[in-house]
């Protein structure tokens, strides 16, 4: 026997001797969390009281219940809604924001312990205003204007990026890459494209021993990003280690197996979510050097699809309601002040007051996943349905028929 074998045996024996975690462990943890949060809130309140001598009125959450404006106010110019269609067949749009594409996800099992999360896309045909299946692509990002999409072929990470002409359905240009790409995102003005590179397919799913559910393979294989000039197809690659920098120190940062980069509002920085970090995100300059979070982006939340409003004054925030009473926050990007509004999940801004969101219908007490696209407006209690309801797919909302995921772009 060598020392490795003994070590292995000793560790396994010690692990096997451990009695199971007590029943009610989850409740214990949740109770501890509540206590800590209350303590933190109390200490923040005490600190605030000590510093602020003048009472400051807390802004009341604006639920819109007293909104007396005519319903026409929330009905945007140029709304194209199809509340009878799910998934949609015909153009869904509001103002300058259009549903440019959608995809149907499916977890395809490869073996008992490995699967791949795949997407099948439908792209808007701007001539007919209908969505057309495009099964050849695994990732699609649509540029503002709905004329160009960046696409990746089925095998990820991909060795080339296609620039697809959405009016003809033809790839205008292929950009060859040395580092495999699996994520794509255009800048706000559509002139730049950030491509996230991975050494392995970030959509690989594994089933850990003793678990019934699939989860992304860890650790993430993300390696860095390219920033391309869309007009010329030229770009350079920057390495980003899992710890966020270029160094090889022993860091213990965590990112999801797919954690794509995006460009900041002004296109000066690249950023990505960092679920373990205290502020939940990291920023880099275009060469991959880590930079502090810009002041106007500090409330940006990567897990909320809508991100920041067209003017940058507001940021879409998380869920604010309780199960059947859905609502979301929008956050003032300068002060952090929160306002509550309708919508279960904020998906895309139409203008500085209006967003497209998922929401459940009234009396939809059978499932939180029975949602439809709606138009919601800050300060208003009204919702304008844009699509039909997505079907619930049991315990795994990412898998199964009837589920579809929207891709929005400026039209």
């Amino acid at each position, binding site marked *: 026997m060598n020392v490795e074998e003994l070590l292995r045996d*000793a560790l396994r024996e010690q692990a096997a001797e*451990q009695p199971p*975690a007590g029943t009610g462990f*989850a409740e214990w*943890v949740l109770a501890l969390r509540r206590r800590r949060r209350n303590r933190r809130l109390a200490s923040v309140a005490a600190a605030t009281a000590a510093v602020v001598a003048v009472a400051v009125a807390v802004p009341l959450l604006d639920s819109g219940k007293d909104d007396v404006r005519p319903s026409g106010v929330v009905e945007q110019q140029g709304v194209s809604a199809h509340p009878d269609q799910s998934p949609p067949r015909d153009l869904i749009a509001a103002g300058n924001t259009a549903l440019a594409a959608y995809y149907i996800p499916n977890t395809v099992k490869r073996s008992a312990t490995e699967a791949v999360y795949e997407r099948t896309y439908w792209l808007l045909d701007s001539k007919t205003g209908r969505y057309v299946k495009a099964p050849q692509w695994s990732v699609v990002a649509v540029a503002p204007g709905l004329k160009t999409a960046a696409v990746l072929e089925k095998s990820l990470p991909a060795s080339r990026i296609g620039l697809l002409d959405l009016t003809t359905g033809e790839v205008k240009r292929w950009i060859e890459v040395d580092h495999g790409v699996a994520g794509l995102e255009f800048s706000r003005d559509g002139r730049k494209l950030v491509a996230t590179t991975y050494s392995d397919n970030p959509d690989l799913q594994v089933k850990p021993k003793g678990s019934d559910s699939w989860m992304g393979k860890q650790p993430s294989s993300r390696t860095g990003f390219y920033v391309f000039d869309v007009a010329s197809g030229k770009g350079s690659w920057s390495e980003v280690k899992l710890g966020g920098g270029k160094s090889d120190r*022993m*860091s*213990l940062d965590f990112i*999801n197996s*797919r954690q794509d980069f995006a460009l900041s509002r002004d296109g000066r920085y690249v950023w990505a979510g960092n679920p373990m970090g205290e502020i939940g995100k990291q920023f880099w300059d275009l060469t991959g050097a880590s930079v502090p979070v810009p002041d106007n982006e500090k409330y940006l939340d990567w897990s909320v699809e809508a991100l920041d409003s067209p003017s940058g004054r507001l940021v879409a925030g998380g869920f604010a309601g309780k199960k059947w009473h859905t609502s979301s926050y929008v956050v003032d990007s300068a002060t952090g002040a929160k306002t509550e509004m309708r919508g279960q999940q904020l998906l895309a801004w139409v203008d500085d007051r209006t967003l497209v969101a998922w929401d459940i219908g009234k009396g939809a007490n059978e499932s939180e996943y029975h949602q439809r696209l709606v138009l919601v407006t800050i300060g208003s209690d009204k919702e304008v349905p844009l699509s039909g309801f997505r079907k619930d797919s049991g315990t795994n909302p990412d898998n199964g028929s009837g589920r579809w995921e929207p891709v929005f772009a400026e039209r």
Partner: protein
Amino acid sequence: MNAEGLESFRDFVDSRSSALLKTAVLLCGGDRHAGEDLLQNALVKAAGRWQRIDEPEAYVRRILYRQQVSRWRLKWHRREVSVAEPPEAGAGTDAASAAELRLVMRAALSRLTARQRTVLVLRYFEDLPEADVARLLGCSVGTVRSTTHRSLARLRVLAPELAALGLAEVERQPSRDYSPVEVRP
């Protein structure tokens, strides 16, 4: 966390906490109470970000490793771990049964630094290849190899009873890591 998140959190804890607790206890050198504290803190942190996490198990495991290292850095004073049968100093390898050697090994493991023990638990309990440990800990394969090398050497110093055991593969290769060695308080 909304109701759906709470439900999925409870499901996760009910189904995975026993397995996670095993790892947590090993990371704490066999201290069950410290392992429970470690896991509990990791789950409290995870609960705060539950609906942003795609891979909860990997996330919680990462917090376990990170917290363990942080506690170390804060010079967190760990309780002395008692083993079922404290090894007798100088006991000859010949006379020691495999079971006794495992107890000796446990006692030695509990005296390693958190970082050394974390690398050994990942390599020999989780059975992760060096490259995966390196990616998980955000360091190079060379650092994992040298830390493993040094940790095994340290085990031999702490437990002379292990001297007669054969060398591990990693011990046959020279260590090239010159980073400072952590010293226990």
